[in-house]
C-alpha cells in the first residue's frame, strides 16, 4: 500500500520531522523513500547546497536502516517548489507524501500559506501533514500510536480507512472511529436563511444509520486485530473532530479529503479547512477515488 513515500524537504530543521515519520512508515511497510529538494528561480544558487543537504539526510536515514532493506532516492529539481513536488508525486506514482506545515528557517522556506498549502490541496496522492508546532515539541512515542478516523458514512468519506487500517495493523495503533451527527447546516443567502435545522426524525435516522455504519467499520479493524472503538457524537463536524482528537489523545487524524458534501466542502469548505487550520493534531489527508457512491448510510 505504501510502496513509495515522498518526503519533500526545504532545508529547514523543522521540516526534518517528516523524515522521522517517513522512516517509521518505510520500516513498517518496506517502502521506497524519495527525498526531494526543489531549487529554482532566484534561489538557483542554492541547488548545490540542497543536494549536499539531502545527501547528508539520506546518510542519516540509511544509518537508521542498518541491516534492513532500504531503497532510497535523492532527487533535486529546479522550478516552482509546489508544482515540482506535485508533478513528481504524480509522475513517479507516489503512495504517500509526508510534509511539515511550516519550514521557516530552511534553504527554501515553505509556509502553510504558500508551498505546503498548495501541495496539500493539489497533490494527487495521500498527504501526511505534520504540524510544525507539534513536530517542534518532539514528544516521545509514535504519532501513529493513537489515531482518529472521522467518517461521515459516505463511500467518499472513507477513503482514508484502508490507509488507517494498514498503518494500525502494522504499527499496532489504537484507532477511534468518529462520526458526527449535525443537527443542521449553515447556509449562505443574502439577508435570508442562515441555518437549516434538520427534522428530528431525520436526525434520529442519521443516528441509527451512522451507528450501524460505525459498528461495521469497527469490525473491519477488529478482524485485523486492531484495537478500535467507535464514537458517535452530535455537533459541528470540524469542531467535534478537533475536540475528540484531543480527548482521545490522538496525535494523528486521518481524513478523506472529500466527504458527502463534495470536494468543495471537505477540502476548501468548513470541515477540512477548520480541521486543517484550527486543529492541532497531525493530519493524514486521502483523496477520494473517482465517482464514489454518494452515500452508504442513507
Amino acid at each position, binding site marked *: 500500500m505504501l510502496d513509495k513515500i515522498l518526503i519533500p524537504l526545504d532545508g529547514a530543521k523543522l521540516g526534518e520531522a517528516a523524515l522521522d515519520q517517513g522512516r517509521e512508515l518505510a520500516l513498517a511497510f518496506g517502502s521506497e523513500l524519495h527525498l526531494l529538494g526543489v531549487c529554482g528561480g532566484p534561489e538557483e544558487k542554492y541547488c548545490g547546497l540542497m543536494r549536499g543537504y539531502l545527501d547528508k539526510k539520506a546518510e542519516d536515514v540509511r544509518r537508521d536502516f542498518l541491516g534492513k532493506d532500504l531503497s532510497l532516492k535523492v532527487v533535486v529539481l529546479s522550478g516552482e517548489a509546489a508544482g515540482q513536488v506535485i508533478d513528481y508525486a504524480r509522475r513517479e506514482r507516489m503512495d504517500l507524501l509526508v510534509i511539515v506545515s511550516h519550514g521557516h528557517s530552511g534553504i527554501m522556506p515553505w509556509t502553510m500559506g504558500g508551498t505546503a498549502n498548495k501541495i496539500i490541496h493539489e497533490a494527487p496522492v495521500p498527504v501526511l501533514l505534520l504540524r510544525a508546532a507539534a513536530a517542534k515539541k518532539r514528544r516521545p512515542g509514535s504519532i501513529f500510536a493513537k489515531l482518529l478516523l472521522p467518517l461521515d458514512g*459516505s463511500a*467518499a468519506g472513507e477513503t482514508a480507512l484502508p490507509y488507517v487500517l494498514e498503518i494500525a495493523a502494522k504499527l499496532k495503533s489504537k484507532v477511534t472511529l468518529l462520526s458526527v451527527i449535525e443537527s443542521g*447546516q449553515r*447556509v*449562505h*443567502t*443574502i*439577508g*435570508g*436563511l*442562515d*441555518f*437549516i*435545522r*434538520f*427534522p*428530528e*426524525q*431525520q436526525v434520529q435516522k442519521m443516528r441509527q444509520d451512522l451507528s450501524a455504519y460505525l459498528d461495521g467499520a469497527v469490525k473491519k479493524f477488529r478482524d485485523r486485530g486492531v484495537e478500535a472503538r467507535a464514537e458517535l457524537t452530535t455537533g459541528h463536524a470540524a469542531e467535534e473532530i478537533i475536540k475528540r482528537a484531543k480527548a482521545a489523545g490522538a496525535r494523528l487524524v486521518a481524513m478523506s479529503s472529500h466527504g*458527502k*458534501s*463534495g470536494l*468543495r*466542502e471537505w477540502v476548501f469548505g468548513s470541515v477540512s479547512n477548520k480541521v486543517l487550520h484550527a486543529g492541532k493534531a497531525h493530519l493524514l489527508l486521502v483523496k477520494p477515488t473517482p465517482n464514489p*457512491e*454518494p*452515500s452508504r448510510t*442513507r
Partner: protein
Amino acid sequence: MHTLSQIFAVLIFFSMFIVIILNKVPRYIPALVGGGLTIVVVFLLIMKSPAAVLGVLNVGQIVQPAFWIPGHEPLESSGVNWQTIIFIGGMMVMVEGLGKVGFFRWLCLYVARVVKYRAVSILVAFILLSGFLAMFIDSITVLLFLATVTIELARMLKFDPVPVIIAEIFASNVGGSATMSGDPPNIIIGTALGYSFMDFLKNTGLIAWVGMIATLVLFYFLFRKGLRASQKGTPIDPSLYPRPKEAIDDPRLFKVYIGVFVLTIALLVTHAQTGISVASIGCIAAALTLAFGYKNAAHTMARVDWRTLLFFFGLFVCVGGLEHTGALKALADFIGRVSGGSFAIVMTIILWVSAFSSAIVDNIPFAATMIPVIRSLAAAGMPLPPLAWALALGTDIGGNGTPIGASANVVGTAIAEKEGYPVSWGRFCKYALPVMILVVGICWILLVIKFT
C-alpha cells in the same frame, strides 16, 4: 431635504443588512442590534420621541380585543407585526409536531406509491404536492421533507433527483404565493394591510395556480426525457421501497395532528368570516399540538426556531425606523415620479423590481421594506390591493431565479449537495430563471387584465 433621523435610519438599516449578508453571525443578532440602534439613536436621541418607540414596538396592539377576538375588522399594522410573529411561531410548533409524528415523510412516500414509483410521475406528483403543501406551511419544511424523500427514491429508482428538486423548489415558491399563509412575505403583507386568506386566494391564488400549471407543463417537457432515460431498465418492485406506514412514529398522535392541521387550514380559510385573527389561529394550532403531545411539549417548544422570530422582530423595528422617519415615503414618491403617476406602470415596477430583487436578496426583508412604500403610494391615490398582489407575487415567485433567492431554494439545494448531488448556480439558473421570468410574465399579464 433629508432629515438627520432619515439618514441614520437608512444607515442603520443598511449596516444591519450588510452584517446579515456577511453571514458571520446568526442573522437575528444584527437585526436585534439594528432594531436597538433604531430605537435609541433615531427615536430617542434624534427624534426625542418615546411615542415613536411605542408606535414602532406596537405592543399596545396585542392588548386590543381586535387583535385576537372574533368579530372585529382585521387591524392594519405598522412597526412590529405581531400578527406575523405569533402566527409563524404557532405554525412552527404545529409543523414541528407534524414532522415528529412522520406526517410529511408519510405523505411523500404515500404519493410516490400512488404514482407507482415512476420517475416522471413522481416529478408531476411532487410538483403538485409541493405547491399544495406550500399554500399552508412554510416552504422550508416542504423542501426539507420532499427533497430528502426525492433523493431516497432517486437512489433506489436510479434517476437523477436534481431536476425533480429544482421543480419542487419552484412549485413551493409558486404555491406559497397563492395564499396568505404560504410564504412569509404574504403573511407580512396580509397582516400589515388587513387582507384575509380568501382575499389572497381569490387574487394571488388564481394567478399563482395559472403559473403553477405553466410550471408543471414546462418542467414536464424539460425533464421528462432525461428522467425516463435515467430510470430505464430499473425494475420497479414496490415491496423493496420504504412503506409509507414506516414513517409513522405514533399512529394515534399522527391522526390527531392531521386533525389539528385540517382544523388550522379550515380556520385560515374562514378567518375573514369567523373574524378569528391569524395570530389566534397560530396560537390555537400551537396549543392543540402541545396539548395532545404534552409528553413532548417542552421538547417541541425547544425546537421552535426562536432565532427567526427574533430576526423578524429586529427587522420590523428597523423598517419601522425607515417608515416613521419618512425615508420610505421618499422612495414611494420616487417610484410615483418615475411612473408619471400611471397605476399600470407602478404595478409593473412593483412586480418586476420585486421579482428580480427577490432572486438575489431574500424576499422577507424586501417585502417588509416595500409594504410602507406601497402604503404611501396608495395614500397618494393608487389602489392598494393590486399593488399588494403585485408585491406578493413578485417577491414569492421572483425568489425562484437563483439558488439563494428563497428559503426553499437554499434548503433544497443544500440537502441535494449534502447528499452528494451538488446543484451548481448554472444548472439551477438554466432551468429556473427562464421559467421564473415566464411565470412572472404570466402574473403580470393577468394583473394588468384584472386591475387596469
